[in-house]
């Protein structure tokens, strides 16, 4: 039975568990239950990916209503890959959750925290799995509303303003997407993505098509925090509880990038988007400017979580750059980076979270001499930081390699050079942390206890993954290549 209903179980299991958390109430019990659910989701997502790789596209009709009339869950290589990513991160973070949430969230709210966490997971998985355009919006709002709540649970009062700012921007973005979808429905009378892709081409000459695409794109770019629409991101990541920051940084923007890929390549088609409207002319420079501007901002930050948040926006620039090349290699680079960046950024935020637990501060000035005071945590930070720079043998290298390869393939060597040079900026901001932590003497040089084992497991699990997938690239790159081929319409 599980085999046949895999796609829906992946959504229903966390969805049903969220209200059950409310009924359970007791702190540790809720945590254990939520962990079990996350691990179950991971199992289901892996089974789904294996089946998709074997059998090709899997379609599931909700309520037995056949597409295009009913809501269809449609899983192919790319969304199975994203689903696996989201569930891996959600499951690994649950180890970190127990001590971290006890420290950062007030005791009475724990069960609500895990409820929101599971709802957010449901939303993100739902976005990735559904084949219905309006359903994307519904799941987008489920995940967004729960993430606003999660962010607002941060200790600092600025978490409230950050969450509010994100709420305004996020809702504007989501509403833009709804307008786009509404106009698409107006032209074609269908909401099923596959059906839309068949019915849209005759409409390409109309002004409505342009407007629909414009609204949709702007909405998605806000959601995925593309420069210059990223203003909500740094504050939201900075003041949210550590667990939430790591979770959102690793999944929320990545799923939004998946939505972008799905709408531009599958629904509208690369021909319309990149040949008729020439979106790449706009996407590539904007990505490059974004990479430089936000990397420079990262260098000047005095708060580690904020520094990492700005670096996230820069890394999104790399992914969009890969997409902008509109070639199999470029898309492979973008999609691999989506996976790799999730691993390394989650590892970095977890390391920062470990320090916050013991030190109570993510200010760079307080991190002096931390290399000696918390050697294990800082070692993980440095290793994941090397990934961020793109040092060989780490995952960061793999994705940058494909991006530069794609640029050279297209004959745009200046872009390859610029992308390569931008890594130097990453060197600078990672080095700043290293310099403070290892080469400056702390006022108080006493040893601090390392973070609890549970948190170490999550942190080292992800850091280990950044190294493992940096050497063993079969899984990530092969699947990404197949996904890229699928999106562009050639089989590799």
């Amino acid at each position, binding site marked *: 039975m599980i085999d046949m209903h895999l796609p829906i179980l992946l959504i229903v299991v966390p969805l049903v568990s969220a209200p059950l958390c409310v009924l359970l109430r007791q702190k540790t019990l809720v945590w254990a239950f939520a962990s079990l659910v996350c691990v179950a989701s991971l199992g289901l997502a892996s089974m789904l990916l294996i089946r998709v790789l074997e059998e090709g596209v899997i379609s599931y009709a909700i309520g037995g209503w056949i597409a295009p009339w009913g809501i269809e869950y449609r899983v192919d290589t790319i969304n199975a890959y994203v689903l696996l990513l989201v569930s891996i991160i959600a499951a690994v973070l649950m180890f970190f959750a127990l001590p971290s949430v006890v420290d950062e969230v007030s005791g009475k709210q724990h069960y609500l925290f895990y409820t929101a966490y599971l709802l957010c997971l449901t939303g993100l998985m739902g976005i990735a799995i559904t084949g219905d355009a*309006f359903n994307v*919006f*519904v799941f987008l*709002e489920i995940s967004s*509303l729960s993430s*606003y*709540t999660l962010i*607002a649970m941060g200790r600092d*009062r*600025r978490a*409230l*303003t950050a*969450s*509010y700012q994100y*709420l*305004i921007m996020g*809702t*504007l973005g989501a*509403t833009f997407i*709804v*307008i786009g979808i*509404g106009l698409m*429905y*107006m032209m074609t009378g269908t909401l099923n993505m596959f059906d839309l892709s068949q019915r849209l081409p005759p409409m390409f000459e109309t002004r409505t098509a342009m407007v629909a695409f414009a609204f949709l794109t702007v909405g998605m770019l806000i959601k995925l925090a593309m420069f210059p629409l990223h203003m909500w991101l740094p504050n939201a990541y900075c003041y949210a509880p550590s667990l939430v920051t790591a979770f959102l940084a690793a999944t929320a923007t990545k799923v939004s990038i998946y939505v972008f890929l799905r709408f531009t390549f599958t629904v509208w088609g690369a021909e319309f988007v990149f040949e008729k409207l020439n979106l790449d002319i706009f996407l590539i420079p904007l990505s490059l400017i974004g990479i430089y501007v936000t990397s420079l901002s990262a260098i000047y930050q005095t708060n580690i979580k904020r520094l990492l948040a700005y670096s996230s926006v820069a890394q999104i620039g790399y992914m969009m750059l890969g997409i902008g090349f509109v070639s199999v290699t470029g898309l492979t680079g973008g999609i691999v980076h989506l996976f790799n960046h999730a691993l390394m950024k989650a590892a970095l935020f977890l390391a920062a979270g470990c320090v916050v637990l013991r030190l109570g501060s993510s200010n760079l000035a307080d991190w002096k001499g931390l290399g000696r005071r918390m050697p294990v945590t800082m070692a993980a930070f440095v290793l994941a930081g090397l990934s961020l720079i793109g040092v060989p043998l780490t995952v960061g290298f793999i994705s940058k390699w494909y991006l530069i390869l794609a640029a050279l393939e297209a004959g745009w060597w200046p872009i390859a050079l610029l992308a390569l040079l931008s890594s130097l900026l990453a060197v600078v901001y990672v080095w700043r942390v290293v310099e403070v932590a290892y080469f400056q003497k702390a006022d108080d040089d006493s040893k601090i206890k390392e973070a609890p084992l549970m948190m170490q497991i999550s942190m080292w699990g992800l850091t280990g993954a950044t190294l493992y997938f940096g050497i063993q690239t079969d899984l990530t790159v092969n699947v990404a290549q197949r996904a890229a081929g699928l999106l562009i319409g050639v089989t590799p």
Partner: protein
Amino acid sequence: MISVGLFNYWACMVLMMIGLYTAIARPNLVKKLIGLSIFQVSVFLLYITVGKVSGGTAPILGEGIEAYSNPLPHVLILTAIVVGIATLSLGLALVVRIGEAYDTIEEDEIIERDIVND
């Protein structure tokens, strides 16, 4: 020349612009949310307008009625309204908490107080 047939779309656009401007430009957090709501409602109007079939009645089966308006956009918007309510109440809850934490709900004053705090 504004043609009468497109009146709803014009109204929708005007509301949309009012909402968007208020949501972005007003410093008061509650007014921002009001703007956001107007913006969302204008989109509801857009959907409902799309679903109207000229001469059609409400989509409830009845004798002697041939043309019905398209019920699908209505259903979609019912979902969007619920989402809108959730967003609005979450936003207002945040504003209440911000008000308690900062003693003000004006954006510029909040920024000022955060700078003093640093």
